């Protein structure tokens, strides 16, 4: 599975405010791009822009060298899946029915094997017969992710996928994300946890007030100075003895 996405010079405006100023990014097979930045920096807007949720004021998005706007919706849905932050489902669908909806771009929502595999991977198989509304927030998040996995696309856009997970679920989720990347998929994830980005992302993009202020390898990009500036908080990146880096607020 090889894939690539290139977004060049994206500008997104809403009314008279500009939400994204000239942001470019690219991701290809085997990459996990983490989009970082403080609240309101435009992370979700960026994800929406490359997902094709709204028209761009300027700039372009290409998936596998094809212009986003020229792709029919169903073909696009077979290329990329999107995990939104949270969704309210309007009728009492069961977990299995919701995961099966992920198959709808492929016009086979009875593909039991893929649906079951996706549920097992997200550890929601035991919830199959429950209705979505009766689940905890963390369970709902995993069900949504299982639906995204069932869509079986080479590209995945995840908006804060770990926000409502506990630390154990978060670790398991991230190892799943890594295995998706190892399978040759490309993942773009909006993340809040800088340590997670440092450990799991192959590259990062830092947004600040709608502009890209840094991008590249997390180890070189995520520095004390940059993070302290962007988050208005003194932040220190410390190397641990086992060769990893830990990012913590600095109160010294």
């Amino acid at each position, binding site marked *: 599975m090889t894939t690539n996405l290139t977004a060049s010079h994206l500008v997104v405006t809403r009314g008279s405010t500009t939400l994204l100023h000239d942001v470019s990014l690219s991701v290809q097979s085997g990459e996990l791009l983490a989009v970082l930045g403080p609240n309101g920096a435009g992370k979700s807007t960026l994800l929406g822009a490359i997902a094709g949720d709204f028209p761009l004021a300027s700039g372009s998005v290409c998936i596998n060298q094809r212009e986003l706007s020229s792709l029919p919706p169903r073909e696009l849905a077979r290329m990329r899946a*999107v995990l939104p932050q949270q969704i309210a489902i309007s*009728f009492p669908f069961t977990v299995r029915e919701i995961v099966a909806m992920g198959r709808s771009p492929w016009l086979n929502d009875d593909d039991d094997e893929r649906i079951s595999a996706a549920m097992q991977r997200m550890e929601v198989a035991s919830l199959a017969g*429950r209705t979505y509304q009766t689940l905890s927030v963390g369970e709902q998040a995993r069900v949504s992710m299982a639906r995204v996995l069932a869509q079986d696309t080479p590209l995945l856009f995840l908006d804060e996928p770990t926000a409502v997970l506990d630390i154990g679920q978060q670790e398991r989720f991230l190892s799943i994300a890594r295995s998706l990347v190892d399978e040759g998929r490309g993942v773009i994830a909006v993340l809040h946890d800088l340590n997670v980005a440092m450990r799991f992302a192959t590259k990062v993009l830092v947004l600040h007030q709608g502009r890209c202020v840094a991008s590249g390898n997390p180890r070189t990009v995520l520095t004390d100075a940059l993070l302290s500036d962007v988050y208005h908080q003194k932040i220190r990146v410390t190397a641990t003895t086992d060769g990893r880096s830990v990012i913590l607020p600095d109160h010294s």
Partner: protein
Amino acid sequence: MTYARRTSLPAVAIFLVALLTITTLLSLATGAFRISLSDLFGIIGDGPSRDTTDAVAHNVFWQVRLPRIVLAIIVGASLAVAGVIMQGIFRNPLAEPATVGVSAGAAVGAVIAIIVGLNQLPLGVQLAAFLGGTLSTALVYVLSRSDGKTEVVTLILTGIAINAFAGAVIGFAVFVADDDEIRSVTFWSLGTLGLATWKAVGVVIPLALLGIAMSAKFARVLDTLALGDRPATHLGVRVEPVRLQAIAVVGLLASSAVAATGMIAFVGLLVPHIMRIVLGPRHRHLLWTAALLGASVTLLADLAARSLLSPAELPLGVVTALIGAPFFLLLLRSTRRSQGGWA
């Protein structure tokens, strides 16, 4: 742990078909002129044109009762399917042609036609009802959407406004109408199957079948729409065009139903909801099972309308509202609880 309780599809299908068969036979036999079951099969065996020894029973059956029952089945199925689609596209179990004002719009079209004398033309009133219903469908759609979203509150308020306007027009019509016209106006605003003729059936059948057939194509899309507009888009659904087509089908179904029988409230609300509880919310099966149940419910309501105060006949809309309104209140309470209010 609350697991979704669902009844198996074959069991539901058998029950619904049996229910429809029984209510149909019961409706055919019952009425001001009783026809025993054995006579009933004899008359059916004789066919519509043959003269039989019992000419009265023959006529009652072929010219009065059968068209009425066929119409009840079609209209009930149409209203239920229209309800399923409308609830699906607005993502809300309270949407139905009557609550959002589509039925009232159709009734207003009919009433205006009666007052200005269009009832002299063949099918003039039906055509006006159809136009009124389609127009109010378009109005509801345009008014209740902003920024590509439908706000539930706006939807319901739009319905209140259209229903109030319709009430005023009908009230005015009653005020200026002569006795004959008042009877017609009452018919449109309260709904009845008492005026069923083969001609009316012939007009509604093709429209209803067209609408119901078209509804099948929305089954998968309505499921994904339950996730919300954006997730549905991400799954490859062209949300806006689909919604517009679905609204057009609702307009077609509801308007043609009201054009034939006047306003029959709550069938489109009650029936999809019951089927959703029994079978779950997947639209593939919801659509046709709701059509079957809608037909049975309308037949039963009509049976009640004809027999409760026999030989007098209650308007059908009165019966459906008497049963439907309390149900609607219960639904409001339970939905409010499960959704945590109406945002």
